[in-house]
């Protein structure tokens, strides 16, 4: 059996490669070149940089496995970077990691896995694939603090049958300890936090460099439409954002609404932000789809715990009712459904104006 391991140059995928070797696989390491500067070179800041690829190459050499860099710049630019910029410019809060997993890693690279004669695709994600009868189920990672099942919710049965996530069975501490035992150079390398193609770490710099409109100033409104301040571009805001609003009104204020065409943002109190409704499109399912009336746990942003919601409508648009009112989810983010530790699937949250009025 042969395994293709996507090696980012981080500790998780380094250990994943080592674990597959221990399991008796023939292992091939690859790094995806996803992003490049104007001269075609790999970025030197951010993550997925040239030095990350070097780390991956050195780990592969240490493990004595073949290693290649595969060029996915075109796919990544089209499927991830451009929609990311367009999303923010349209008042959305996109999640590029999810699009990368959907369009690049677990589609283009999965096809590549077969073309290269490999049986499984391995990544260093913290999540688990659990075989349950003839089903493959996606489950949360053993290390709850590192769980990445949210960004993998688009995996279907075929993908789940072809991928292996060996470090999902370990805590991060165990992963680092293992890397240390193996003497891997990435053992104490810090976790990457940033969006890989945003070198400065601030996506707003990235947007305004490419799209002057992203930095166009506009007005900050209260819920009655009164102008109460100014902002430096709607693309810098996310629904529910509290910090950096540039408005002092005594008590905390939150972004309730972003209107890129009018270049306004509307802010209000935490109570104003609450809603019970969430509308989602482009749903996909890891196995069987739930139905109307089912109660599921839903996670509407990466760093939050699932909350209970009832499915009230299905079809092109899925509608969820939160059991307890929640801060309004940001359109563009993904809603992911959980039952216990298992992921059922998810989709992309859309702007649904009626939900605002309903709560107002």
């Amino acid at each position, binding site marked *: 059996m042969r395994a293709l391991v996507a090696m980012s140059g981080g500790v998780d995928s380094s250990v994943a490669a080592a674990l597959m070797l221990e399991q008796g696989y023939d292992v*091939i390491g690859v790094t995806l*070149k996803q992003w490049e500067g104007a001269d075609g*070179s790999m970025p030197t800041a951010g993550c997925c940089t*040239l030095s990350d690829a070097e780390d991956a190459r050195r780990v592969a050499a240490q493990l004595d496995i*073949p290693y*290649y*860099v595969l060029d996915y710049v075109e796919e990544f630019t089209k499927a991830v970077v451009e929609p990311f910029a367009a999303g923010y410019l349209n008042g959305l809060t996109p999640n590029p990691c999810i699009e990368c997993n959907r369009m690049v890693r677990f589609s283009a690279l999965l096809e590549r896995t077969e073309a290269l*004669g490999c049986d499984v695709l391995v990544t260093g994600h913290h999540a688990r694939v659990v075989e349950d009868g003839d089903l493959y189920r996606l489950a949360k990672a053993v290390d709850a603090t590192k769980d990445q099942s949210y960004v993998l919710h688009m995996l279907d049965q075929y993908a789940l049958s072809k991928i292996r996530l060996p470090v999902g069975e370990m805590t991060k501490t165990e992963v680092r300890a293992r890397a240390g035992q193996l003497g891997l150079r990435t053992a104490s390398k810090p976790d990457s936090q940033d969006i890989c193609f945003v070198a400065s770490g601030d996506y707003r710099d990235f947007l305004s460099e490419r799209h002057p409109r992203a930095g166009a100033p506009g007005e900050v409104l209260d819920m009655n439409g009164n102008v109460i301040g100014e902002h430096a571009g709607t693309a810098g805001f996310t629904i529910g954002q509290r910090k950096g609003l540039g408005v002092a009104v005594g008590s905390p204020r939150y972004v309730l609404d972003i209107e890129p065409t009018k270049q306004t943002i509307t802010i209000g109190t935490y109570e104003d932000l609450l809603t019970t409704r969430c509308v989602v499109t482009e749903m996909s399912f890891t196995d069987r789809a739930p139905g109307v009336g089912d109660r599921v746990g839903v996670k509407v942003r990466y760093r939050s715990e699932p909350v209970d919601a009832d499915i009230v409508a299905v079809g092109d648009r899925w509608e969820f009712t939160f059991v307890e009112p929640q801060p309004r989810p940001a359109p563009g983010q993904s809603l992911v459904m959980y039952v216990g530790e298992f992921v059922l699937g998810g989709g992309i949250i859309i702007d649904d104006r009626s939900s605002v009025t309903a709560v107002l």
Partner: protein
Amino acid sequence: MTIYLDHAATTTIRPVALEALDDAYARFDRNASGLHAEAREAKNALEDARERAASLLGTERPHDIIFTGSGTESDNLAVIGASLASEGKVIAVSAIEHKAVLKAAESLTRFGYTVDTIPVSSSGVVPVGHAVSGEEPQLAVISVMEANNEIGTIQPVREIAEAARLSYPGVVVHTDAVQAFNSHEVTLEATGADLVSLASHKFGGPKGVGLLAVAPGVPVEPVIHGGSQEAGRRAGTYNVAGIVAMVAAMEAAASDRAGFCERTRAERDALESAIVAGFPGATVTARRADRLPHISHIRFPGVLAENLLIRLDMAGIAAAAGSACQSGAVDPSHVLSAIGFTDEATGECIRFSFGWDTNQGVGWRAARTVLDVLSEL
């Protein structure tokens, strides 16, 4: 056992070169510019090597040879050095030059030079008598390679040089002969060029050394500044051992040209005919053009070259596609775009290249493995 078919990237060091390298480090590992006896010994070995290199390149003047650190450096010195020394502000380069020439020329555009790119035919040959665009262009340098490193096509450098000198008096003609030295007589006379670049490791010398042959009276400004080595045209402590070993490899290569051509052509032809017969639609790039005997460039329609290369690597065949970028990913080839390949076709091509030590039967054995791998795709 790996079948190494990437000799155009770098070839096996020749035993005489390895011996010369060891011997040089053992006997005169001193700074050849010093005043003492050991330095004189090193300097003597260096100048002996220079005389032999000059003689191989068809000149009686040893100081027509500038030793450099690589073929790339030789190309940079030629293109930049001759442009800086010229009144002209236009540099003409063929579209299929090595990046060392293209990027060197491009680097001068920031300083008021313009680069005129000479298009090539679909068979990968640079036309003779290219008219440089612009009003009364003052051509400083024209650079056309002896033979292309990806598709192997041999260029009419001599004719191009004659035509260029007629139209643009004072032009300096440079040729990158890095891939041609194994199989073709490369002298200033034979190429018709004013400047000839060579890279040691392409003909079985060590890496990290090259040379530029300069015709008498052709001014070249240094691009690496410092000490007065190489008559002030290339600073830096002499790599005596590397130079001596390179020249040993040059001599071995020059005396083996007929054999090299015969051996590599036989293996290449065997590989090409077996692949063309065994894989429907496979085509040899520029098959009818005058080509180097040791380079075979083949398109496999419907097959992603990157996948094929990886699978060949796993099956024990070392080949190449395009050129590796800094990260190691395969960059699309500017050479193939220049001869009219679509992006799709560009991504379906593999280069197999043979060397002085390629054994008999390798071409056929490699083809069999390639066809096996293709059948699994």
